[in-house]
C-alpha cells in the first residue's frame, strides 16, 4: 500500500469547540462546589447555635422549677405548672404522681417510649422526642417520691429557620450555577471566536492561499501572540516556497543556457554524425531527468494547494489512451479501455495527462507481446483511474518503495531496460497534488495501479 494523503476531516473542529465548553463547565462546577462547602459550614454553625438557644431556654425553665421545688416541693411545682398550662405555655410541661395520674401539665399523658433519666433539675441529660411531627428537646426526671416530671422546649423554630436557610442556599446555589454557566458560555464564545479566526485562516491556507492573513491589529494577549506567531510562520513558509520556485527556475536557466551553447558548438562539428547524435541524445536524457525531478518537487510543493480547475477526466484519459494504445498494439499487447463518460475532477489537465502517460509508458515498457493492457475510468464517490497489465509486475521487495525517486528493480538494470526510476515518483507526486489516493491492488499477475481522485462537491 502506498502512503495516502491524510486530509484533516472538517468535522474534527466541533470536538475542539466542545473542549472549550467542557472547560467552561468545569470552572462553573468548581465555583459551585466551593460555594456548597462554604454554605454547608455556615449551615452547621447556625443549626448548632439555634439548638443551643433552645437549650438555654430549657435550662432557664428548669432553674425556675428547681427554685419552686426548693420551697414547697411537689405542691409548688404542681401549682406553677398548672398555672403555666392554664396560661397556654409554649413549652412542654408535665407532672405526674407515682400511680401515673397527671397532676398538672400541657400534655394528657406521659409520651410513649420516653424513659426518665438523670437526677435533679440540671439540663443534662436531655432527650429529643418527636410529637405530631415536631421535634422537642425534653428533660424527663423521676423526682424523689416517684413523681415523673417532663419539661421540654420545641425545636420547631430551629427547624423552621434551618428550612428557610436551606431554601435560601438552594436558590443561591442555582443562581451561582447559572451565573457560572453564563460566564463560562461568554468565555467559551470569546475563546471559540478567537480560535475560530485562526481555524478559518488555517483552512484558507490549506486550500492553497499562502498569502492569507488575519485582518486588523493583533490584540495584546496570548491570542494576539498566537496570531502573530502563526503569521510569522506563514511568512516563512511563503518565503521558502517562493525561494524554492525561484531556485528551480534559476537552476533550470543556469543548466539549460550552457547546454544550449554546447548544442550550438555541436552543430558546427561536421562529419561525425554518429558521435554528435549520441551526445544530443544524452543531453536530452539529462534534461528529461532534470525536468522530472523539478516537476516532482514542484508537484510536492503544490500539494494540497489551489489552482486546480474542473477537468473532464474522461476526455483526458481517452486522449492519452488513444496516443499510447497504438504503441501498445505495435508491441503486440492486447489492449482494452473502459472509460465512463463525463467523469469530472478538480485538477490540472496537463499533469493528469503526464501521470497517465507515465503509467501507460511504464506498462508498455515492461510487458511482452501477448500481455494485456487495460485502462479503466469509473466515476462514483471517487473517480477511479486504473491501469492494469499482465506483465512481470513489481518484484515483491519493491512494492513498498516503487514510487520513490531513483528506485529501480535490479532485474531491469540486468535486462538493460532504460530508465531513471523517476516515472512512478512523478506519478505519485501528481496524484498527491490532486489529493488522490494511489494504491497497488493485489492482483494475480502483472501490475495494477489505481488512482482514486476526490470528486468535486455537488
Amino acid at each position, binding site marked *: 500500500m502506498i502512503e495516502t494523503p491524510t486530509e484533516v476531516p472538517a468535522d474534527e473542529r466541533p470536538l475542539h469547540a466542545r473542549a472549550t465548553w467542557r472547560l467552561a463547565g468545569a470552572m462553573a462546577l468548581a465555583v459551585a462546589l466551593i460555594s456548597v462547602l462554604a454554605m454547608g459550614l455556615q449551615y452547621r454553625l447556625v443549626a448548632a447555635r439555634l439548638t443551643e438557644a433552645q437549650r438555654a431556654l430549657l435550662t432557664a425553665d428548669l432553674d425556675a422549677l428547681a427554685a419552686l421545688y426548693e420551697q414547697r416541693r411537689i405542691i409548688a411545682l404542681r401549682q406553677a405548672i398548672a398555672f403555666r398550662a392554664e396560661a397556654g405555655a409554649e413549652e412542654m410541661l408535665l407532672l405526674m404522681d407515682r400511680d401515673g395520674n397527671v397532676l398538672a401539665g400541657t400534655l394528657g399523658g406521659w409520651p410513649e417510649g420516653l424513659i426518665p433519666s438523670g437526677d435533679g433539675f440540671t439540663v443534662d441529660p436531655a432527650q429529643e422526642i418527636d410529637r405530631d411531627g415536631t421535634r422537642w428537646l425534653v428533660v424527663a426526671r423521676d423526682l424523689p417520691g416517684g413523681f415523673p416530671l417532663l419539661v421540654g422546649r420545641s425545636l420547631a423554630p430551629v427547624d423552621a429557620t434551618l428550612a428557610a436557610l436551606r431554601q435560601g442556599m438552594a436558590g443561591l446555589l442555582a443562581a451561582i450555577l447559572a451565573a457560572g454557566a453564563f460566564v463560562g458560555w461568554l468565555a467559551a464564545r470569546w475563546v471559540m471566536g478567537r480560535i475560530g479566526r485562526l481555524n478559518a485562516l488555517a483552512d484558507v491556507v490549506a486550500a492553497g492561499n499562502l498569502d492569507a492573513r488575519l485582518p486588523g491589529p493583533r490584540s495584546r494577549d496570548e491570542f494576539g501572540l498566537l496570531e502573530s506567531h502563526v503569521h510569522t510562520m506563514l511568512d516563512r513558509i511563503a518565503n521558502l516556497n517562493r525561494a524554492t520556485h525561484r531556485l528551480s*527556475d534559476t537552476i*533550470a*536557466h543556469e*543548466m*539549460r*543556457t550552457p*547546454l*544550449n*551553447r*554546447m*548544442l*550550438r558548438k555541436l*552543430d558546427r562539428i561536421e562529419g561525425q554524425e554518429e558521435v554528435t547524435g549520441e551526445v*544530443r541524445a544524452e*543531453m*536530452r*536524457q539529462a*534534461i*528529461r531527468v532534470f*525536468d522530472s525531478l*523539478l*516537476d516532482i518537487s*514542484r508537484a510536492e510543493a503544490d500539494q494540497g494547494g489551489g489552482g486546480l480547475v474542473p477537468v473532464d477526466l474522461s476526455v483526458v484519459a481517452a*486522449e*492519452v489512451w*488513444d*496516443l*499510447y494504445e*497504438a*504503441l501498445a498494439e*505495435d508491441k503486440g499487447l492486447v489492449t482494452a479501455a473502459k472509460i465512463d463518460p463525463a467523469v469530472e475532477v478538480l485538477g490540472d489537465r*496537463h*499533469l493528469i*495527462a*503526464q501521470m497517465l*502517460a507515465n503509467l501507460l*509508458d511504464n506498462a*508498455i*515498457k515492461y510487458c511482452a507481446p501477448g500481455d494485456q493492457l487495460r485502462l479503466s475510468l469509473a466515476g462514483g464517490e471517487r473517480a477511479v483511474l486504473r491501469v492494469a497489465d499482465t506483465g512481470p509486475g513489481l518484484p515483491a521487495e519493491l512494492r513498498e518503495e516503487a514510487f520513490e525517486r531513483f528506485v529501480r528493480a535490479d532485474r531491469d538494470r540486468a535486462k538493460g531496460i532504460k530508465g531513471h526510476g523517476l516515472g512512478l515518483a512523478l506519478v505519485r507526486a501528481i496524484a498527491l497534488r490532486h489529493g488522490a489516493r494511489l494504491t497497488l491492488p493485489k492482483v494475480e499477475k502483472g501490475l495494477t495501479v489505481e488512482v482514486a481522485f476526490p470528486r468535486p462537491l455537488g
Partner: protein
Amino acid sequence: MDRILIIEDDAETAAAVAAVVRALDCAAEHRDTLDAGVAEAAGDYKVIVLDRTLPGGDGVDAIARIRAGGSRALILVLSALGRAAQRVEGLEKGADDYLPKPFEEDELRARLRALLRRGTMQVLDNDLLAFGDLEIRMKARTVHVKRAHVPVSPKEFELITYFARNAGQIVTRMQLLENVWNLHFDPGTNVVDVHVGRLRRKLEDAGSPAIQTARGEGYVFAPLPAAGGAG
C-alpha cells in the same frame, strides 16, 4: 522580406537564432534587454523570438505589453524555463509557440516556418484541400487518394490536417505532440512515430507517398512530387 525580432540576452544563442532567421530569408533584429525589446516590438515584425529570463523581467509577463504596443507579430518563446508546466503557462499567457532551450536548430526552423506561414495562409476554412490526387474534405472529415476513400481515425484526420496546414515543411515530433495531442511534455518514447507510421502506411497503400521522414527531427508532408521545397 519578413522581419523577425530576437529578444535574447545570451549573445551566442542570439547569434544562432539570427543565423536560422537569415537562412529562412528573413531579416533579424536583436535586442538584449526586455525593455529595449518591448519598445522595438512596436515595429513591423512578423515573428518575435522572446526569451524569458531577461534583464528587466520575464518575457512571458511582457507579452501583454507587446500586444498593447500595437504589435501583431506572432510570438515564439524560446526559454530555458522548459518544463511542461512552464510551456503551458507561456502559451496561456499569449505566446503562439514555446520552444525550450536547449533547442535543435531544425526544430527552431520548423517552428519559425510554421509561424511565418500562419501569418499568410488563412484559407484552411475551404472545405476541400487538394494536393494532387490526395483530397481532404474538412466538413465530411474524409481523405481520398486517387478518388479512393482512405479510412482514417479521428486522430489521424487531425494529424493529416495539421500536416496539410504545413505542407512542404518539416514538422517535428514535438510540434505534432503539442498541436495534435495538446500535450506539452516529452514522453521520451516514439509514441508519435507510431501514429504517423500508421497514417503513412494507409496513404502509401492507397498510392500516395505523401508523408516522408525528414532527416533529423521530423516529417515532411509533400504530396506533390514537384512541390518539394519550402516557402
